[in-house]
């Protein structure tokens, strides 16, 4: 008689526990980009680990840090019982990939190369997480996703309309760093962002994502606007001459990260361009 009770209890435990634990997805986000997307989908309560770089939104501070593109803390990942890891493409993760997969952890690489990819990553993250949610929560997430896509599409449309009004696209130099000067080329989403806003990246002809250039090359292409994306850039040290406008009051994070905030960045940039055009 007693044995039967134990068997039933065991059966209950074996069956119920997996069900219980799979109800709540446990997510690790190894890049600020995916973290921001998770927050905008309302999925932040499932995040159990973030990267050292994460700083937005402020709530992120409460979540424990488990690594980033250069290193991951395996012990912490197990401690938080992660199920899904969203990460940029890195060699570090690649090495551990097989091991982590064997432990049953799902690894999703997020690597947006253009604006379309950013929207795609929104859907990818949403779908990956919602698969592990309860049906009701899943519906909520899907609704959020649709809504976000709708609003962003609307914003993109508006941006494109505004762009039509801009007659002359000002030449823009994107300053990612100086000493040496670092900028972006054709294969980066930054480039696309600038062009969508209505500017023209002076290095859009270069078939690379990010690279360094000499100051003379910059001057040769006669930029009219310099978009400074270096955090805490000291204003005086701009050594370039001839440019008419230096934009250094935009938070670099919203441009440099492939997240939804980039569209705010594009809107801000567009506004500045339109004002500039008026002069």
């Amino acid at each position, binding site marked *: 008689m007693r044995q039967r009770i134990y068997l039933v209890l065991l059966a209950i435990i074996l069956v119920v526990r997996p069900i219980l634990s799979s109800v709540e997805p446990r997510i690790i986000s190894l890049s600020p980009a995916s973290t921001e997307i998770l927050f905008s989908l309302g999925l932040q309560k499932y995040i159990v680990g973030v990267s050292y770089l994460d700083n937005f939104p402020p709530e992120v501070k409460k979540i424990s840090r488990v690594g980033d593109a250069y290193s991951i803390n395996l012990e912490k990942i197990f401690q938080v019982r992660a199920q899904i890891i969203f990460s940029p493409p890195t060699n570090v993760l690649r090495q551990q990939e097989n091991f982590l997969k064997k432990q049953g952890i799902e690894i999703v690489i997020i690597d947006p190369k253009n604006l379309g990819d950013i929207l795609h990553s929104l859907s990818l993250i949403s779908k990956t997480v919602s698969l592990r949610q309860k049906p009701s929560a899943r519906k909520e997430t899907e609704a959020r996703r649709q809504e976000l896509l709708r609003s962003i599409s609307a914003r993109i449309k508006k941006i494109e309309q505004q762009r039509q009004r801009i007659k002359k696209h000002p030449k823009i130099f994107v300053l990612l760093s100086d*000493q040496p000067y670092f900028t972006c080329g054709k294969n980066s989403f930054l480039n696309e962002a600038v062009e969508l806003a209505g500017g023209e990246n002076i290095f859009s002809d270069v078939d690379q994502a990010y690279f360094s250039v000499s100051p003379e090359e910059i001057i040769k292409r006669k930029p009219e606007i310099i978009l400074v994306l270096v955090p805490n850039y000291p204003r005086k040290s701009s050594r370039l001459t001839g440019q008419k406008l230096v934009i250094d009051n935009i938070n670099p994070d919203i441009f440099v990260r492939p997240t939804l905030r980039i569209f705010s960045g594009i809107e801000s940039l567009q506004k500045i361009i339109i004002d500039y055009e008026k002069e």
Partner: protein
Amino acid sequence: MKKNSRIFFVLIILLLFFSFLEIYTGPIKNPEWNIILTLRLPRIVLALIIGTNLAISGTALQSVFANPLIDPYISSASAGAAWGIILSRWFGFTDLPGAVVFSLLSLFFSYQISRKNFRTTPTRLVLAGVTLNTFLNALIVIFFLTYHRDFYQLLFFLFGNLNETDWQLIGLSFLLSIGGFFWLYRLSKHLDIISLGEDKSATLGISPENLKLQIFVVVGLLTAISVSLSGIIGFVGLITPHLLRMQMGSTNRQIIPAAALGGSILLLVSDWLARNVAAPQELPLGVVTALLGVPYFLYLLRKQQ
């Protein structure tokens, strides 16, 4: 020394040629005077200062340690200077003093590591320098990864470039470097003699410890100046004296001025290649000098065995 006069002549011609090349070629065709003054001329002055500093430092180190396999880069003076700059910026000080202090410390350290029974064999010195170098470079990367995460600044140190345009800084560096040059030049005979060994040198009236101290100070200073202007650039200090010794003999009174010219030329050539080979991209200067220098370094190592 008729042959050496000819070599000096050739070196000067080459320097002038590459200087003109640097002035008249570049992305902007028919540049106005302003561009040449603010962008191209500083590169030449920088190449002169840094090429000279690194090459004559290499020459002096190679004599005082009687070891042809040493230069500011290998001896970890450059890495030390980089560290000094990082720490100075972290605490809000100007670059140069910190760079000098740490450059000197690194030199001193790798020298001490290589001593055993008061003798330093060439191999031990290279090993000590390489070890300390690796350690310092690792520290630099860790620093950026943990505190700074501003990956692009790291590139300045590890890659090197001649983009500096602050004429005040360049001017100060120029003056200090001239002082360093004449100090080393004055020590030419001492450097010749000490390459025969510390015992012989002492009994000829030249204190090895005193000479080493002077050389450390000057090399530390010149290396610190170079690194704060352009980041870490390797191999110039190694291969310039060697190439010249093969042609000119080994007396430092000839090699030191020749190395000044040779190092400048090497740096001008490397800079020209760095900017034009993959235009509009600018390749890292330290990478170009390494590509030019590593095969030669390996060849030298084989010759040594």
